[in-house]
């Protein structure tokens, strides 16, 4: 019951959505829209689980006075701050001038932008290790990355300013992105496509069961 029912649901729903592609009549022609809506609603319920889990873990840390409990308290307070304000604002919570918008502009954006921007430093240090031209393949990777990077900043065209239009670093970067990069990307995309097809078949047929867990 605990394993068979989810497997049955997966198979029936999966086959229904495959059939839907070939039947352009009601109700199959509405299923894409329905699925998108259902998925959105389930997402909203899933975030409740996630948020409760975060609060529970943080609260346990605070109550037990475990290492770093002060930071756990900050997590709870900042979560409560933006959530209470956002829920109290009503459905127009995003309008400019609202308290939620103030928190979004002055806290969420600076934090997320800075968090992602420091990746530039880690990427630079990783590239120093990875980009050493140890063999032909690494050298090709290094050259492609160099031309794309230098072609996307003004100094690239300043350096190659003496070259005719169409042969500068920016043009080379565009050419790399348009042709060899596209070719490799297509091979990867086709590979991913075939992989998704086989994995989906395994899921629908019940061969792949990771999503229903291992317990009873």
């Amino acid at each position: 019951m605990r394993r068979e029912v989810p497997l049955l649901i997966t198979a029936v729903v999966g086959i229904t959505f495959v059939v839907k592609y070939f039947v352009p009549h009601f109700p199959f022609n509405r299923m894409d829209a329905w699925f998108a809506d259902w998925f959105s609603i389930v997402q909203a319920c899933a975030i409740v689980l996630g948020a409760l889990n975060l609060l529970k873990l943080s609260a346990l840390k605070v109550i037990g006075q475990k290492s770093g409990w002060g930071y756990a308290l900050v997590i709870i307070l900042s979560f409560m701050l933006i959530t209470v304000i956002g829920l109290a604002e009503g459905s127009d919570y995003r309008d400019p001038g609202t308290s939620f918008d103030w928190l979004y502009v002055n806290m969420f954006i600076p934090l997320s932008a800075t968090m992602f921007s420091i990746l530039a430093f880690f990427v630079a240090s990783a590239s120093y290790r990875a980009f050493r031209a140890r063999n032909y393949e690494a050298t090709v990777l290094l050259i492609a990355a160099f031309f794309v990077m230098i072609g996307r900043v003004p100094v690239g065209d300043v350096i190659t300013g003496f070259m005719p239009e169409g042969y500068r670093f920016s043009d080379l970067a565009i050419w790399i992105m348009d042709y060899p990069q596209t070719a490799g990307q297509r091979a990867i995309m086709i590979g991913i496509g075939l992989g998704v097809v086989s994995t989906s078949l395994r899921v629908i047929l019940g061969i792949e069961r990771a999503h229903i867990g291992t317990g009873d």
Partner: protein
Amino acid sequence: MEAFFEHFRLWLAAFLTLGIFSFLYKDNPWYKLTEAIFVGISAGYWFVVLFWDNFHGKFWVGAGEYSINWVVAKLTGAQAPPPPDSSIDFMLWVGAFLGLLMLLRLVPKIGWISRWPLAFIVGSTGGLWLINYFASNVMVQAQATMVPLFSSAFGTGFDQNADAVIGALIIFLGTFSGLVYFFFSKAHTGVFGGTARVGVFFLMITFGASFGYTVMSRMSLLIGRIDYLLGDWLGMIK
């Protein structure tokens, strides 16, 4: 008062920005504090967004409010709401029901029922992707790769220039050899192995270009933050 809040706003964002940047020196209490704020604010932000946009915007407006009003009217004998118009879609209740089942995970005794909505989502995603990925990632990409070499379209004659012909050849060669590399059911030896090796070089160019592209996008974020610190906060850039 307005000036105070303007300064407070600038200093708060600068405090958070520098707190995250301080990790570049080493892990420290300032970074941990801003990290905790980031975790709490992000979780809360997405909670609010998903509540208002997905739950309220879709389910409550689309079906929930009307249904509840109708049931309340029936129970209390009050005047029932007018018949639903086209904006009301009772199928949204299926999503609400699935969401409710997912929340049963909070009840340990019947928490296993939360696997049903998960099975529904996985099954429907599998069914959708099986066809959609095959159509978009395999068929469309293969079609875009095998284009007329010397013509801009079928039947237009020899109207392509040398750049376009070479470009089409490179794309075909790169895609084909890349796929040969991904074919592991045959040993990569002889002509097959040579083709696979060509594919590796195309894949390396792809990874290098993607890497460079990613670095530049991160750099633009970094420049944005430095611009904020030096311009908006310290006023050194006018």
